[in-house]
């Protein structure tokens, strides 16, 4: 069931009404049943997977807490984490591993027939497996176990965040089940506002940009280097508004039931460096990677080389988490390299004692934001391209051809201007500019109280306009949310 479907439009209000009229004691159970229905509406048999994983973790994780020696504790934790990772590995990485093994043995002139596994990736598996690992590690670190199977099941299966996060922390979520919120019109207003905003981001912005991106990345040779820059910017905003839209709908839906789930984005394209970007982009994943991969690997302890190794490993594995393909792995490694480069750059700046006035100047900040955005965009090429060969092709066009086209600029270089339908093609430059300007504008506005708590009249006008826009201008066949595939 997709958030942007008619099914969800029926499902959500139905569950909401039942939830609020049900006796308080039954609410969590009702929400759990609804969450399983939501999950199983796609592939009923995969319901068994999430139920099995939940029961497995429910019974095994307390064994970590009860282990007598630190060694036994560690061993049990390793087994639980391994069990979760094996499930993820079988469903997500089995074919990829076979491909890699095949390619490596081919290099060694060993030929064998590679089997084709027809495994359909269960929706949301990457997200709920990470939530279980977090649960196991936190229990290992001394946090309490979850005593109720309903609570743990709902923690993993909670339908608003089930498919694509945000990746929750049980220490934040489970207590909310103990102190259930009362019905509040404030929550309804905030929830509906987030859902509408999310739908707008997905259906009006991301889905329209998706048309250009799909056309551009599938037909690279038709477009000029400058077009490809515009299309890459378009993808930067497509993936942001697609995922941020999903997160808004998830957070809004959760809020209708009185649950607060973490934010995932904080104006990432205003980041002044790559480290800052990862504090603003997919926050629930980056903090998970920090807490359960980077720090256990040693974090920044043990010197520069080890620190950089840990950074590189964390980001490369984070890349692979997005998808079982080489270009995701390389995208992750690229992010690792950028983070290392940023640390080295900062170190050099400190060493040469560059003027603090320059570093804190507005111009330096703006240049840093623009540079970071472009470095991130180069990364998006690796992320979006079908494979490394096409990624290399696009990058060459961006880096080699585009500068030449700028020096000999002519409007006729922009093939996107030749295409008049859909309108997103000729309007692309204007749309990109508007979206770029929207970032600092939102940052500025969000400091104003009138933006955070607008008067009722303004809020009603905005909500009415959003609904009308969505009804009149959404496409009939909206593609899936990008992060559903992970």
């Amino acid at each position, binding site marked *: 069931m997709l958030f942007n479907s*008619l*099914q969800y439009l*029926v499902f959500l209000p139905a569950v909401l009404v039942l939830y609020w009229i049900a006796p*308080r*004691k039954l609410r*969590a159970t009702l929400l759990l049943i609804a969450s399983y229905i939501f999950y199983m509406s796609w592939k009923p048999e995969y319901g068994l997977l999430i139920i099995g994983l939940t029961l497995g973790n429910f019974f095994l994780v307390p064994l970590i807490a009860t282990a007598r020696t630190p060694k036994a504790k560690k061993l049990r934790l390793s087994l639980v984490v391994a069990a979760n990772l094996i499930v993820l590995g079988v469903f997500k990485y089995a074919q990829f591993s076979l491909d890699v093994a095949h390619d490596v043995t081919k290099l060694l002139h060993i030929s064998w027939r590679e089997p084709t596994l027809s495994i359909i990736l269960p929706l949301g598996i990457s997200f709920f497996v990470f939530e279980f690992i977090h649960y196991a590690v936190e229990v290992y670190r001394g946090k309490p176990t979850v005593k109720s199977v309903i609570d743990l099941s709902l923690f993993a299966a909670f339908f608003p965040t089930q498919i694509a996060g945000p990746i929750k922390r049980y220490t934040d979520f489970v207590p909310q*089940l*103990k*102190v*259930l*919120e*009362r*019905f*509040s*019109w*404030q*929550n*309804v*207003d905030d929830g*509906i*506002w987030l859902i509408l905003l999310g739908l707008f981001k997905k259906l009006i912005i991301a889905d329209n940009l998706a*048309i250009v991106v799909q*056309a551009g990345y*599938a*037909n690279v040779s*038709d477009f000029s280097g400058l077009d490809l820059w515009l299309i890459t910017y378009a993808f930067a905003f497509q993936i942001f508004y697609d995922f941020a839209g999903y997160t808004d709908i998830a957070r809004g839906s959760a809020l209708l039931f*009185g649950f607060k789930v973490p934010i995932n984005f904080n104006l990432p394209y205003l980041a002044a460096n790559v480290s800052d970007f990862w504090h603003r982009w997919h926050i629930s994943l980056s903090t998970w990677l920090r807490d359960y991969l980077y720090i256990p690997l040693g974090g920044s302890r043990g010197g520069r080389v080890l620190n950089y190794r840990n950074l590189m490993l964390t980001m490369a594995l984070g890349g692979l988490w997005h998808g079982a393909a080489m270009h995701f792995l390389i995208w992750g490694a690229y992010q690792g390299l950028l983070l290392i480069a940023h640390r080295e750059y900062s170190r050099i700046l400190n060493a040469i004692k560059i003027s603090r006035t320059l570093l804190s100047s507005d111009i330096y900040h703006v240049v840093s934001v623009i540079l970071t955005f472009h470095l991130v965009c180069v990364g998006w090429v690796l992320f979006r391209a079908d494979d490394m060969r096409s990624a290399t092709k696009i990058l060459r066009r961006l880096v080699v051809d585009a500068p030449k086209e700028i020096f000999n600029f*002519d*409007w*006729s*270089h*922009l*093939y996107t*201007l*030749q*295409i*008049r*339908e*859909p*309108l997103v093609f*000729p*309007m692309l430059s204007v749309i990109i500019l508007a979206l770029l300007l929207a970032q600092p504008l939102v940052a500025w506005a969000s400091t104003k109280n009138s933006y955070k708590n607008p008067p*009722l009249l303004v*809020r*009603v*006008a905005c*909500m*009415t306009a959003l*609904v*009308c826009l969505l*009804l*009149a*201008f*959404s496409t009939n066949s909206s593609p899936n949310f990008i992060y559903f595939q992970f």
Partner: protein
Amino acid sequence: MIDSPPAKSPRITDSATVWTVACLIMVNVILNLTPIHFDNLAYPYKAWSWWCMNDLHKSDHSFNVALLGSSLVVTANSGCDATFLNRTVNLTKHHRASYLDYALTSKFGGDYRTFNLAAPGQMVSDAYLSLKAMLSMGKRPEALVYCVGPRDFIDATLSSPSETELIGYLARIVSVAEVADDLYVEPFARLNWWLRQSIPCYGRSADFQIVTTNTVNQVLARLAPRPDGGKPYALPDRRRILPDFNKAETLPEISLVHPIDPASLSFADNSGEYIERYGNPTGSLYQTERKFFDRITDLCEQEDIKLVVVNMPLMAANKELLPAAFLTAYVSDLEKSCTKSGALFLDFSNAKDFTQSDFQDPVHLNGIGGRKLYDRVVESIRSNTAFAAKVAVIGASSKRRTSLAGQAQIAH
């Protein structure tokens, strides 16, 4: 389990959501009451039915015969007409059945003008709505030739009749309320239809998109015209770069049919497509489409339209993909419905005189087969004395009207 401390919750009257719902109701009531004129014949893109209905709407001629059917008759008719007229026929503009008119006139005298409502992929439900659209434009035909095949009733790739491309457009032109139960079988399709009926903002979304696209395009043409000297962007480029954009759009430059050269006839086996299509011959879709067939026969009876139902010739290779018992029941069902409503039923499904050279694949007749088909249809009508008399009257009265109109024009 305990409750959280009471949050400072605003009252229902302070809720933005409640006021938004009220505003939306108001906006939609106003939209319902305001006489905004939308062109129902417009559509975001020009699909087959768009060309057909717009041509019919703009035409000054009166048509006394209508032709209905799927690609079975489209291929037969277009190849036949291109050869008969000895010129390339553009299917976005040619909505006639010139050879059929000629054959009818030759046999019965008088004047026959056929409007061709047939469209590729036309299911019986689409055919019913096409006929209703023709009637709603005040262009009632006096006779209807409806060429059918089992594929018009069954399609395992569809779960309900509302999933065809044609319905999307036809439902704009004619009211589908009376048949909504059968068209929108899936509960969510039904809900979607109901929402479209009830919420003008949603129901008229195609109109808003057309208006916006046209306005923005006009502004762009002035402010940012296509740059000179750029790489040209033509239809083949669009099909390659944007394969899913307006997929069903039919463009004049790719809708050309040339006269048939008997020396270069080709034949292709499309059994794979039909194995999939015939997956569930007796499913609920078949029953629904049968209902629509009865609706067509009833509508013709009610409107006094002489109906000729032609069960199209098919090659054995295609018929063998369907259970023999199904085919027998199917023919018998059609015959019963026709007999009940006084329609003429012509079953050519086992006609021996259609050979492989008349087909372009096991299902579709080519132009030569099309000509043979029309000859057989006209001959079969003539051999039914009572029906032939009615058809002859149609031609004769049309000729009389045409000559009277001609005299009036001369007098004027």
